[in-house]
């Protein structure tokens, strides 16, 4: 079979539960042109090479929404065009190239300091146990709605400095705006319209919050970014809002998937669930293997800005490029016996957090959240079982994960 329609099948929701067979077919041609002119890169070496290739751009967002009259001249002629232009110029740094990317990322890295992330461990433990307490008396839970979803949003809100009472609203925004990170949804007109509305709302909210952080600085990321420090320039407000939204969305959706995919995988291979119960110290290795085996971000898109010769083909200038990270993670040329879940792999340099310039800023936080969550679940859930396998998936093919994960269990143990 020709590989030119394989990626279309990857996007097909029917293949969401197990796309790995399609990846294996794609890897027969490491860089494969699809019918629509997109180049899909599916092998580890080629992906690793392209994430650090300066001919690859991250500024690949589709053109802004087509103009539609709303009937309000001030909105149509002034407000919307200005907003659209601001958004175009102040995309979050995940969609920007150097030098802007480096400047913004640098400022975020300062605020997202290792000490600050480490300090979140204890709070994450408390939150985790609070959520598990609520399982008491139930015979079944939906892990996604009852656990994986609320945990990361609370953590990222605390880190950013969003007041607890505003969290539910933030959760709603995060869910909607995650579609902007989802290449197979973001081009859709209705999604774009909803995102624009949502972005306007969250921007107004953040503008007020930022003003507060300037008046009454606190120990949180937004305060640091809003005020800058002596050594660095301050981020302007448009970039600041775009950055805050990115941290919210990227720090949330991905972790939901990491936790849910982990529980799903561990219950499919219960010997590892048992191992984690017996020895929580193996959690970090287990999570690294999870990031290889079922990465929460399956692929990222880029744009070739020059002809790039690679693996016997030339990706032409202006071609869209898909870096299929999840396939690189299953590449037998890099990982022996790649379809086996094996936390004891000696050299597990997976692409679960991407690589190169845009390597995941939140990786240390994600590792802590997943570790705390999995250790507590393994310790406290008595005899958990999957009720439905495979579970229903959310529509996204890139931010891929179950929509629900129904678990039956015999009770909960003490913390």
């Amino acid at each position: 079979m020709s590989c030119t329609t394989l990626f279309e099948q990857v996007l097909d929701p029917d293949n969401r539960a197990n796309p790995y067979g399609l990846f294996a077919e794609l890897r027969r041609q490491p860089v494969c042109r699809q019918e629509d002119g997109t180049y899909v890169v599916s092998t580890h070496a080629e992906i690793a090479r392209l994430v650090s290739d300066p001919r690859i751009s991250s500024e690949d967002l589709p053109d802004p929404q087509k103009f539609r009259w709303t009937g309000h001249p001030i909105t149509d002629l002034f407000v919307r065009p200005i907003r659209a232009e601001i958004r175009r110029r102040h995309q979050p740094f995940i969609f920007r190239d150097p030098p802007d990317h480096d400047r913004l990322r640098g400022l975020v890295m300062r605020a997202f300091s290792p000490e600050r992330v480490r300090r979140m461990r204890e709070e994450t433990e408390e939150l985790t146990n609070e959520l598990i307490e609520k399982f008491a008396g139930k015979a079944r839970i939906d892990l996604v709605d009852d656990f994986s979803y609320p945990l990361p949003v609370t953590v990222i809100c605390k880190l950013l400095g969003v007041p607890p009472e505003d969290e539910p609203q933030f959760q709603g925004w995060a869910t909607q705006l995650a579609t902007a990170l989802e290449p197979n949804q973001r081009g859709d007109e209705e999604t774009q319209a909803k995102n624009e509305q949502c972005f306007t709302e969250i921007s107004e909210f953040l503008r007020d919050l930022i003003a507060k952080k300037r008046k009454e600085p606190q120990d949180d990321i937004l305060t640091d970014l809003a005020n800058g420090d002596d050594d660095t320039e301050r981020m302007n407000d448009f970039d600041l809002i775009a950055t805050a939204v990115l941290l919210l969305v990227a720090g949330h959706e991905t972790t939901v998937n990491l936790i849910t995919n982990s529980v799903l995988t561990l219950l499919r291979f219960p010997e590892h669930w048992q191992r984690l119960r017996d020895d929580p110290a193996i959690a970090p290795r287990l999570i690294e293997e999870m990031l290889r085996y079922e990465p929460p971000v399956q692929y990222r898109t880029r744009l070739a800005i020059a002809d790039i010769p690679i693996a016997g083909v030339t990706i032409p200038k202006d071609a869209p490029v898909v870096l299929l990270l999840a396939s690189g993670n299953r590449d037998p040329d890099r990982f022996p016996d790649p379809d086996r879940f094996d936390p004891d792999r000696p050299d597990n340099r997976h692409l679960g957090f991407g690589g190169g310039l845009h390597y995941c800023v939140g990786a240390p936080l994600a590792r802590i959240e997943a570790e705390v969550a999995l250790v507590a679940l393994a310790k406290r859930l008595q005899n958990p079982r999957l009720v439905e396998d495979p579970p229903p998936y959310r529509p996204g093919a890139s931010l891929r994960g179950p929509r629900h994960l129904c678990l039956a269990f015999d009770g909960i143990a003490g913390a």
Partner: protein
Amino acid sequence: MSETPSGAPERIVVVGASLAGLSAAQALRTEGFAGSLTLVGDERHAPYDRPPLSKQVLRGLFSPDTTLPRHPDLNAEFRLGTPANRLDLDARTVSLGDGTTLPYDRLLIATGTRARPWPKSDEATLDGVFTLRTRDDAEKLSARLKAGPRRVVLVGGGFIGFEVASTCRDLDIPVTVLVRDGQPLEAALGPRLGGLVGEIAIERGVDLRLGAEIEQMDSEGGRLTGVTLKDGERIEADIVVAAIGTVRNVEWLEGSGLAADEGGVLCDGYCRVLRTNGDIVPDVFAAGDVARWPNPHQDEALVAVEHWGNACAQAKAAARNMLAGPAAGLTRHDHLPDFWSQQFGLTIKLVGLADGADSLSIVHGSLEARRFVALYGKDGRTVAAASIDSARWLPAYAAAIRERAPFPPITDAVDQPRLRIEEP
């Protein structure tokens, strides 16, 4: 003599208990070596990491104890504080300073280098005159910096000297740097980029003197009080740090028949050492700063690469080859040299060797912004790439250097200025 050692080794001795020695030991175990493993080190400390010594340790941010992590199952005997002083190739033994003799089936020479001492011994022993190579050096110098000296004079225009100068500025200590020849860091980066780092150092308050040399050190009661330069100028200072290069630790190999001199221990691309007559010694290997080997990325020129990354990579290659049976085949050490340095708030990285380059081109960012990737070309090929605060593109250029791509290899890229080819 056969070029393949006979039989599987039972006893392996590693002389040198620093990064290369420890990396080799760990690699030997990972590769399945189960026999007896002995590491010999002249320092009393367990293997430790050197890069933080001139930075975080000196500044007082890290403890001087930078002991390298060790696998719990390493199961090696450490003979620390005991230098090796003789090698007998025929008897296959190493004699140690404490009078004992270690027999070996395979030997790894990883004795590295030491700081080049100040050439005038009466000045070198003055209270206030330092070199910086070891943990003990860093501990002593750090204590003196904490006491708040009036001024530190650094001799030498290399990376260690500049890192120490940067640390002094972080501690708000006045510092003068004397560079005898050319621009700072010129050997590694060439005059253009070396000069740029010099400018940045001056902006950060370093009193940088090019073409300056010490005529004599002044002292009172055995304590340094200042230096007099060749041009007659006197600089008051309580500390001189001589960062004037390194000396390879090869004296113990004298008379062994190995091709070892101040240039290093000569070995082939598989880390096997050579005799003075050019014969391969099949059971003795070398790795790290002390090894001198034909570098495939520099037309097989013999080089010694005193970098952290090379020590690790070469130790691994040597370990694999020490265990390779006749059928298994040997692993070529084809590591592309790379190093990094942090100073004056900048991260400088280099891949490849810029030595002998005839052209330079800024391919990302700009010198003005002090954030860039610069490429070095030689005879139309790309031979090295240096970056300041923009290291994430370097892997692409490392691949180009490995492939001996034309210079410059990529001419249309993100954040790329109009390309100009200049003198390095």
